[in-house]
């Protein structure tokens, strides 16, 4: 795939990410007549939650569940909206002038928009246990990607460890697809049941209540569950062989071929941070999230964030937040078209409904400190540079005060993953070690390119705007 000839040199709106928030936002601005471009690095729309919704080989919809099918409506509405879509296209840069750096099929372009809506969603929280870098240990998110796009379930002896709605959903999907799970190690801290209890009423009236309990029951009928897990260690010579676990005073070990880890998702902040958008620490969700107004406007004029990238809210709320951002965009760029799209009040009400029960989930699945901040000195934190928790603590002892200075000492966060796999761990570890809050310690200063771009692609950027037009319009 390369840039199509129909691509314009500038757009009213560029939406980044084709998950529920991006699909809903782009469809809404395009319906209002704004020249809209939706960019996504996958070849098919859907994002993570509706990954491969149009292409999945799993024809039996009962495996992935009814919620997954909801993605079809979003895709159909988007396809009728008249928005342009660039699939298989990487966004590697965004600046405060709203110039978006794109690469596609070995070429790169810089395209400007009046509004940019970032809908890059969530990523899995790092889960740095001893041995988490061994082959055979992977994340549940990666496992689910394989399931949705290729219909693959892990072969060999499998265990899941961690906590959160995705763990139970994936476990149920594996079982429905005919897979077998040797055991699930539930790391939900027992104290969380108490701190979450006050939020239970809201949850009982949410759709998650029935669905969630049903999933857990479905899994528990056939899989051995160890609850209250307080320590996990993956062992093996060149690949995973054994998982050693502790749950309070109980201990045990299990031989495994595959261990899948998951302890919730956090906003994917790399592009927003690289653009210079202000973020703050969320002490309930334990992550950085952008500072936004009710519509999703960030600290940079003309750049908005919608969906889980704005703070974790789930797929249904992501679509509503995408619409809310789009409505604000239309109100600013083409107010006379507001009548053609859903009203702000309706969307706001639906958003409130979808957010019911969220506080309960946030408190219940707030991961334990022992699984966020590695206690063993030998546990690897930065996978790219193979830096351990002990090495980071040693650097703090000789003067590294925050993640950005740590780069100079240990090169943490400077590898190809750009800190995605270690950023939160480094911030929380340094905060803990120095007796400061994560807000005070801060995060890596991120920069474009947020995704690698080849020298050839960079050199291929047309000379100036007129050249861009000349090339694009042939």
């Amino acid at each position, binding site marked *: 795939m390369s840039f199509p000839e129909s691509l314009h040199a500038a757009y009213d709106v560029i939406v980044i990410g084709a998950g529920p928030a991006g699909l809903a936002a782009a469809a809404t601005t395009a319906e209002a007549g704004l020249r809209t471009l939706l960019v996504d690095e996958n070849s098919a729309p859907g994002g993570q939650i509706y990954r491969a919704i149009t292409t999945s080989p799993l024809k039996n919809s009962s495996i992935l569940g009814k919620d997954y099918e909801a993605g079809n409506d979003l895709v159909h509405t988007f396809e009728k909206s008249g928005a342009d879509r660039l699939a298989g296209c990487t966004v590697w*840069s965004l*600046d*405060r*002038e709203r*110039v978006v*750096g794109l690469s596609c099929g070995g070429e790169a372009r*810089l395209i400007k928009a009046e509004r940019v809506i970032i809908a890059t969603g969530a990523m899995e929280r790092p889960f740095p246990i001893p041995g988490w870098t061994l082959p055979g240990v992977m994340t549940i998110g990666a496992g689910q990607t394989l399931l949705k796009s290729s219909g693959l379930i892990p072969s060999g002896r499998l265990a899941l460890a961690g906590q959160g709605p995705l763990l139970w959903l994936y476990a149920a999907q594996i079982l429905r697809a005919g897979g077998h799970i040797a055991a699930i190690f539930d790391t939900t801290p027992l104290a969380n049941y108490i701190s979450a209890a006050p939020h239970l009423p809201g949850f009982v009236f949410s759709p998650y209540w029935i669905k969630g309990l049903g999933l857990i029951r479905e899994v528990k009928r056939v899989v051995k569950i160890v609850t209250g897990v307080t320590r996990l260690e993956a062992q093996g010579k060149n690949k995973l062989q054994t998982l050693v676990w502790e749950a309070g005073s109980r201990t045990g070990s299990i031989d495994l071929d595959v261990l899948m880890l998951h302890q919730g998702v956090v906003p994917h902040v790399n592009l927003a941070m690289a653009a*210079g958008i202000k973020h703050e620490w969320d002490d309930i969700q334990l992550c950085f999230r952008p500072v936004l107004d009710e519509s999703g406007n960030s600290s940079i004029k003309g750049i908005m964030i919608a969906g889980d990238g704005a703070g974790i809210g789930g797929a249904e709320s992501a679509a509503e937040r995408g619409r809310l951002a789009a409505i604000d965009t239309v109100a600013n760029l083409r107010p006379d078209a507001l009548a053609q799209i859903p009203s702000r009040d309706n969307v706001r009400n639906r958003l409130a409904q979808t957010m019911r029960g969220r506080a309960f989930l946030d408190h219940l699945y707030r991961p334990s400190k022992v699984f966020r901040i590695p206690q063993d000195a030998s546990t690897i934190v930065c996978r790219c540079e193979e830096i351990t928790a002990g090495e980071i603590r040693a650097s703090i002892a*000789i*003067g590294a*005060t925050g993640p*950005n*200075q740590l*780069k*100079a*000492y240990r090169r943490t966060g*400077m*590898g*190809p993953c*750009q800190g995605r796999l270690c950023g939160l761990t480094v911030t929380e570890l340094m905060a803990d070690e120095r007796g400061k809050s994560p807000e005070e310690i801060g995060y890596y200063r991120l*920069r*474009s*390119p947020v995704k*690698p*771009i*080849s*020298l*050839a692609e*960079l*050199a291929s*950027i047309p000379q*100036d705007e007129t050249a861009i037009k000349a090339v694009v319009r042939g």
Partner: protein
Amino acid sequence: MQTADVIIVGGGIHGCSTALHLALRGLKPILIEKDYAGRHASGVNAGGVRQLMRHIAEIPLSIRSMDIWEKIQDLVEDDCGFDSHGQVLVAEDESELAPMRDRVAELNLRGFNHEELIDAKELRRLVPAVAESCPGGVVSRRDGAANPAQTTTAFRRMAERRGARIIEGVRVDTVKRDGGHWYVTAGSEVYSAPVLVNAAGAWGGKLAAMLGEPVPLEVVAPMLMITSRVPTFIKPVVILRGRKLSFKQFENGTVMIGGGYLGRAYPDTNETDLDWTQLKNNARTVWDLFPIMREATIVRAWAGIEAKMPDDIPVLGPSRKHDGLFHQFGFSLHGFQLGPGTGDTMAELIATGKTNISLEAFRPDRFETADIGDKHEH
């Protein structure tokens, strides 16, 4: 109130080096840094340790610095990541080689022998991957590169161990002179000393203006890029002058690409924006010159906030306005290598009242005939 012998404003390589050398001479300096040592240009520059192609006036400082670089471990108990594989200026064609020939001849006449003219054969031996069409260049064999953040941090740490006080995260609010003493208010504290050093880098112009000695300093944001690992193919740092490029491969195989292309600087908020329309030109030059790099990937890019003077040499030495005030800023994108020797020279000047190194070319009042402020518009 806290008293000291010298107050240094700015915790870059220059401020930290001056603090260390003052402490080594038995003086008590206090260094005040608004962020943390090495936060800006000193920590994020290309790390070039270069005598090659320096302004004539800077050469004595550069040589004094080189002598320190070669024994850097002894001074700061850290190797600073310094390696010495030389720096090579490549001529892309004969028209670029001619002025290089003249320059080396002029340096030789003045008694400087660190730059050597090389022919195509020696160029190919030093830099085998360079395009066949390049007819020669200039090499400075003792030059090399170091890790800038590691170096600045090492100077900071050793200055503190030798008795300097380093105060980070505190911005200087006001500076007053009274009865032969400077009174510097920073945060909730007042610091006092008979001597003040302005080593505030990109913010040095603001401080100089506050002290009634304005200079036409431009705040700029030079950009750098790092590639993914490629097979080792080049040892020296390579620079071009016609088209802007500096090029350095690290031991881990990654390659740093720079050359002084400028992004946008926001010194009030410590932010910078990259300008990819400029970095594209940088990439294009590498594409042309080093075919081996064509498959490489850019994995990181960044910019630092730096001071640039109209004549591209620093403001350095005693103030012409106040006793007990010294300037050490405006190094115009090439101050890193000068840090060690300039700190030594400044400490000598402050402690003994004199130095053998001529600082005449760096006088703060050299711009007075020019229309100051003009440059700020660019």
